[in-house]
C-alpha cells in the first residue's frame, strides 16, 4: 500500500506554484484535502496561493471535494481556481 498521492494544479494556481503537478508522500497527520492544502500553502512563496482565504477549489479523484474529504494513498487530488468555462 502506497501513501503517495498525485497532485494537480490548474490555471492561475498552476502558474502561482510553478508546476502542473507532482507526486507526494502524504506527510504524517495529513489525512484530508483541507489538511493537504494547508501543508502545501506552508511551502511559502507562490504556494501562498493555496492559503486559507484564497479562492481555491479542490477535486479528489476527479470529483469535487470538500476540505474534510478523506485522502488515501493512490488518490489524485487537484487544486484550482473557480471555473470559468462556457
Amino acid at each position, binding site marked *: 500500500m502506497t501513501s503517495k498521492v498525485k497532485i494537480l494544479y490548474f490555471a492561475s494556481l498552476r502558474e502561482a506554484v510553478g508546476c502542473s503537478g507532482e507526486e507526494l508522500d502524504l506527510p504524517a497527520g495529513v489525512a484530508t484535502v483541507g489538511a493537504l492544502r494547508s501543508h502545501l500553502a506552508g511551502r511559502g512563496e507562490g504556494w501562498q496561493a493555496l492559503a486559507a482565504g484564497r479562492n481555491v477549489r479542490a477535486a479528489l479523484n476527479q470529483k469535487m471535494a470538500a476540505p474534510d474529504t478523506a485522502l488515501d494513498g493512490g488518490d489524485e487530488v487537484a487544486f484550482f481556481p473557480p471555473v470559468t468555462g*462556457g
Partner: protein
Amino acid sequence: MVQARAQGAAEVSVQHEDFDVGAEIARLGEGRRDVGAVASFVGLVRDANEGSGVRAMTLEHYPGMTERALEEIVEQAKARWSLLAVRVIHRHGRLEPADRIVFVGVASAHRGEAFAACEFIMDYLKTRAPFWKCEETPQGARWVDARESDDSAAARWEGSGSQAADGDDWDDIELRR
C-alpha cells in the same frame, strides 16, 4: 423507454476542433419521429471583456474530470426533464473572437422541456465544469475571474426538481474553513 442517441454517438465531447452547428442540431432529431422540439445554445468568443479588448483566449481544462462533470450535468438534466437527445460540445485551447466555444443541444417532445434543459445545462456547466479562460488583452494575459452572476444563475435551479446537490461542494472549501 428513452434511447438517448444512436448507439456509439457521444453525448459529451471536449475537443479543440470546431463543430458544425447545423449538423449537430440535425443529428438531435435524426432517425426518430417523437422529437417535437430542439433547443440549442452556442457560446462564442467576444472581442471585449471587463472593459478591455480580447485578442484571443486559451481555455485550459482538466482532462478526464471535465468529461465526467459534463456527463453528470447531462444526467441531472435527464433526471429533471423528459429528454429525447442531448449533445454538449466544449472546445479547449486557443480561440479567437467569433470562434465557437460551446454547443448545447436538447431534443424533447415539447419546447418547454428543451428550453429549460438547455439553459440548465449551460448554467451548471458555467459553475461546475473544470475549464478556465486566460485572455490575451493589450495589457497582457489575464485569467478570467468567476462571476457571481453565474453562481446565482446555477443556484436558481436548486430547491426545485430532484437532486441538484453535490455541486454545493464547489463553495465548501472556502465556506467551511
